[in-house]
C-alpha cells in the first residue's frame, strides 16, 4: 500500500531515545524522499548513529513514529529492517574475517538457504556486484587478506545485495583516498537515479556539498534543521552543528622552526612491505605532511621508522646521533611517538581508564625502583594532560570506550606528550572526529610543534594536510615521489604526485 499523499519515502517524526537517564535523542525528525541523497550531519555524540540504529532495528525508540512508504514500521532487529528494505553500512566493519568476500556479501542468505549452497553461483553474483561498483576485488578472496579499503567496499556491496529502498552509509569514506571516494560517489549517484533513498553520514562537509541533495543537522540529540543543500553553505551547516561561528578550521601556527633536523632518515627500506628508499628529515617545530593514496605506503613508512615493521637497510639519525629502532620499545626509548590511524585496534585501550591509557608510556617517570607506581605523580601528570588537551570527561577514571572519537584521539596523543617525545608520527589525526574536536586536535598539533617537537602527520584528507603541514611529501608506490612547499600546496599537485605524475609546468 503506497500512500500517495506524502512525497517522502521515509518519515521519522518525534523520535526520542534515552539510555538510562541520558537523553540521546529528543523529538528528532528526519524525512527522506525517494531518489535523493540526504546528508545527516552532527558532531560525534550528536545522536546520528543512534537515529540510524533505531531505523535499522538495533535500538528501539522510546517515542515517535517511523513511516516507510506511508506505513508505520517498528523493526525489532536488523533482520526486520533488511526485509523492509533498509540496509546500513556501519562505521565499524562487520565482516567475518575468515569467510570469503562472496560469503560475506550473502551472509544473510546463508542462514536462510536450503541445505545445499550454490557456491559457484553465489561467487559469480558477488563478483558481478563488485564489478558493477567498479572496484577490483576477487569475490573468492578471504576477507582477512583484504585491505581496509577493500573491506569497506565489500561492506557496501553487502548492503546492496538485498533489494534496498533505503541505504544508510555511516562515514563510508574515512578510509578511502580521493580516487576511491570518487568511485563511491559515482555509484551513489547511480543508486539515487534508480530511486533509492540514501542517508549519508559524514564529517567531511565538502563531500556533503558534492553529493547530497538535502541535509538534516543534529546537535546534542535535537535536530537543528533540515534544508536543501542548495539553500545553505558550509558555514551555515557548521553553525547548525556546533551552535557557533567557526572562525578558522586550521588555526595558524606561530613557531620558529629549528635549523638542525631532529630526525633524519636516510635510504630506509622495509623488509616486508613495499616501502623503499625513504629519505626525509623533520626539524624541531616543523609539521611535515605525508600524503599519498591508500596503499602507497604512508602508514608503513611511519611504522618502519617506529620499529613496528622490520627494516632491511637504511639509517636513522636523531639529534645528530645514529640510532637503531628495531622494535617500538627502542623507538619509545628514543622518545619517538606514533599515533595509529586505527584508534580502536592499535591506538587506545578501550576498556581501560583514561589514566591507565595515558600512563602506559611513562612508567619510568612515575614509578620507583621496584616498579611501584607513585600514584600522586601519576594523577598529577594525567590530570594535567587531561586539562591541557581539554579532554571532556568527568574524571580520569572514565573508561576510554565511553569517550567520543575526538576525545579518544586526544588520549592516544596524550600518552606521547607524557614522555616529552622528540618526534611524533600522527597517522590520520582526525579520522572519525567531529568538527569541534578537529580544531582542538589541530591546536594541539600546533602546541606540540611549538614545544620544538618534530611532528609528522599522515593524512588522506587533503584540505587538512594542506591546512596544517609546513611541507608535504607525497608517496607513490612505496617511496616519496615528490615534495611540495607551502606555495605549491594544491589538491591537484598532491594528486598528480600521488599517481606518479610530475607537476604541471607553469607557463
Amino acid at each position, binding site marked *: 500500500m503506497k500512500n500517495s499523499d506524502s512525497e517522502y519515502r521515509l518519515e521519522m517524526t518525534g523520535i526520542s531515545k534515552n539510555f538510562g537517564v541520558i537523553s540521546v535523542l529528543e523529538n528528532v525528525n528526519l524525512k527522506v524522499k525517494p531518489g535523493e541523497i540526504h546528508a545527516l550531519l552532527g558532531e560525534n555524540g550528536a545522536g546520528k548513529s543512534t537515529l540510524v540504529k533505531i531505523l535499522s532495528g538495533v535500538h528501539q525508540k522510546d517515542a515517535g513514529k517511523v513511516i516507510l512508504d506511508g506505513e508505520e514500521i517498528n523493526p525489532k532487529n536488523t533482520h526486520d529492517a533488511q526485509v523492509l528494505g533498509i540496509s546500513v553500512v556501519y562505521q565499524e566493519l562487520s565482516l567475518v574475517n575468515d569467510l570469503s568476500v562472496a560469503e560475506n556479501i550473502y551472509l544473510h542468505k546463508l542462514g536462510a538457504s536450503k541445505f545445499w549452497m550454490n557456491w559457484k553461483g553465489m561467487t559469480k553474483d558477488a563478483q558481478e556486484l563488485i564489478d558493477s561498483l567498479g572496484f577490483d576485488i576477487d569475490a573468492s578472496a578471504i576477507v582477512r587478506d583484504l585491505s581496509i579499503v577493500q573491506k569497506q567496499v565489500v561492506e557496501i556491496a553487502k548492503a546492496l545485495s538485498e533489494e534496498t529502498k533505503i541505504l544508510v552509509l555511516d562515514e563510508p569514506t574515512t578510509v578511502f583516498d580521493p580516487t576511491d571516494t570518487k568511485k563511491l560517489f559515482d555509484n551513489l549517484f547511480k543508486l539515487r537515479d534508480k530511486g533509492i533513498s540514501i542517508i549519508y553520514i559524514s564529517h567531511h562537509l565538502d563531500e556533503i556539498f558534492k553529493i547530497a541533495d538535502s541535509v538534516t543537522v543534529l546537535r546534542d540529540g535535537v535536530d537543528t534543521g533540515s534544508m536543501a543543500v542548495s539553500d545553505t553553505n558550509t558555514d551555515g551547516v557548521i553553525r547548525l552543528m556546533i551552535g557557533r561561528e567557526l572562525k578558522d578550521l586550521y588555526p595558524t601556527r606561530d613557531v620558529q622552526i629549528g635549523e638542525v633536523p631532529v630526525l633524519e632518515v636516510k635510504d630506509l627500506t622495509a623488509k616486508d612491505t613495499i616501502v623503499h628508499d625513504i629519505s626525509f628529515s623533520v626539524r624541531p617545530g616543523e609539521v611535515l605532511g605525508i600524503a599519498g593514496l591508500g596503499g602507497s605506503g604512508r602508514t608503513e613508512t611511519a611504522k618502519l621508522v617506529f620499529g613496528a615493521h622490520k627494516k632491511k637497510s637504511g639509517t636513522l639519525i636523531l639529534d645528530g646521533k645514529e640510532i637503531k629502532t628495531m622494535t617500538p620499545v627502542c623507538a619509545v626509548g628514543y622518545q619517538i611517538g606514533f599515533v595509529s590511524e586505527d584508534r580502536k585496534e592499535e591506538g587506545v585501550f*578501550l576498556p581501560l581508564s583514561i589514566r591507565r591509557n595515558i600512563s602506559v608510556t611513562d612508567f619510568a617517570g612515575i614509578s620507583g625502583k621496584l616498579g611501584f607506581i607513585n600514584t600522586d605523580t601519576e594523577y598529577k601528570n594525567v590530570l594535567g594532560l587531561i586539562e591541557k588537551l581539554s579532554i571532556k570527561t568527568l574524571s580520569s577514571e572514565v573508561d576510554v570506550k565511553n569517550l567520543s572519537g575526538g576525545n579518544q584521539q586526544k588520549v592516544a596523543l596524550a600518552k606521547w606528550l607524557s614522555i616529552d617525545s622528540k618526534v611524533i608520527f600522527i597517522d590520520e589525526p582526525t579520522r572519525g572526529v567531529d568538527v569541534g574536536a578537529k580544531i582542538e586536535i589541530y591546536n594541539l598539533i600546533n602546541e606540540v610543534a611549538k614545544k620544538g617537537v618534530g611532528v609528522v602527520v599522515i593524512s588522506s584528507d587533503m584540505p587538512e594536510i594542506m591546512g596544517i603541514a609546513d611541507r608535504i611529501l607525497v608517496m607513490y608506490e612505496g617511496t616519496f615521489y615528490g615534495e611540495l612547499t607551502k606555495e605549491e600546496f594544491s589538491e591537484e599537485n598532491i594528486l598528480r604526485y600521488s599517481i606518479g605524475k610530475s607537476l604541471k609546468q607553469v607557463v
Partner: protein
Amino acid sequence: MAFTIKQQLSSPAGVLKFLVKYNTIFIFILLLVFSALISDVFFTSVNLSNLLKQVSGIGVISIGMLLVILTGGIDLSVGSMVALLAVTFAILVNVVILPLAIVLTIIIGFALGSVSGYLVAYQRMAPFVATLALMTIARGLGFIYSKGSPITFKTPGGEFMSNFANNATIGIPNIAIVFFLIVILATILLRYNVFGRLIIAIGSNEEASRLSGIKVNKYKFLVYAISGALAATAAVIVASRTNLGSPNMGMAWELDAIAAVVIGGASLNGGKGSAINTLMGVLILGLIGNILNLLNVPSYPQQVVKGAIIIFAVLLQRFESK
C-alpha cells in the same frame, strides 16, 4: 569527580548498580549467610579451617591463572604441574635440607612455566595449545619420577612441613595465610606496580601495547613463568598437607582455577579481573563444595550445582557491562 560509594548508594538504581559491580562479594556473603542458616556445623572453627585448607592449593594456582588470563591467555598446565612438582618436592625434601627443597621446587616450577611462556610469547603458539601440551607432559613426568605411586616425606624437614601445613596461627590455617599473602601481593602488584598495569594493558589491547613501546613478549613470558612458580607453591602446600607427593594430585585443578577466576569477574579476553575477586571466586567454589558436603549431597550433583553457579555469576556480570 569520581563517583564515590556514597553517591552510588544514594538511589535505588545506585544500590542495584553497586550490587552488580561487587557481585562476587555479594554472592559470597549470600552463600555464607545461607550456609550458616542451613547447617549448624558450618560456623564451627573446625569446618571453617577445613574449608580454608581445602581451597588454599587451588587458590594459589588461581592467582597464577588470573595473571595469565589478564594477558588474554590461559594456562591449562597448572593442575598437572601441581602433581609433578608435589612429587618433585617429596623427592627433594627427602634428600636435601628443607629450605633448599622449597626453593628448588619453586625454581623448577618457574622453569616449567617458562617453557609455556617461551612457546606462547616467542613462538606465537596459542596459549591453549602450548599449555595443553605442557599439561600432558607434566602429568606424564610426574608418573615417571614417582614410578606411579605416592612418595612420602621421610625426613625431619618433611615432618616440619607437615606440621606447618596442618596447624594454624591465630586460628587461621598456615597454608591459608600463605594463600592470603599471595592474594595481597598480587593485589599490590596489579594495582600499584608497573608489572600489573602492563599485563592488563596487554590483555586489553596487545597491538596498542606493542605500539606504545611495551615489551609485550617479555611480560607474556613472565606470567606463564610466575604461574608455574605459583603451581610449585601450591604443590608444596598440598604435598605438605598430606605428607606425600602423588602424581594423581591436582586432577582438573586447572578447570577449578579457571572457574574461580571467571566467577571473580575476569574476562577470558584479558584486561579485566582482580586478585580480590579471584579470592572471592575461590571461596565461593569452596563454599559450595563445603555446604553440599555438610548436607550430604553426593559429588555428582555437586558438580551440577557448581556449573550452575558459574553460569549465574557470569550472567550477573553481563549486567555490569551494560
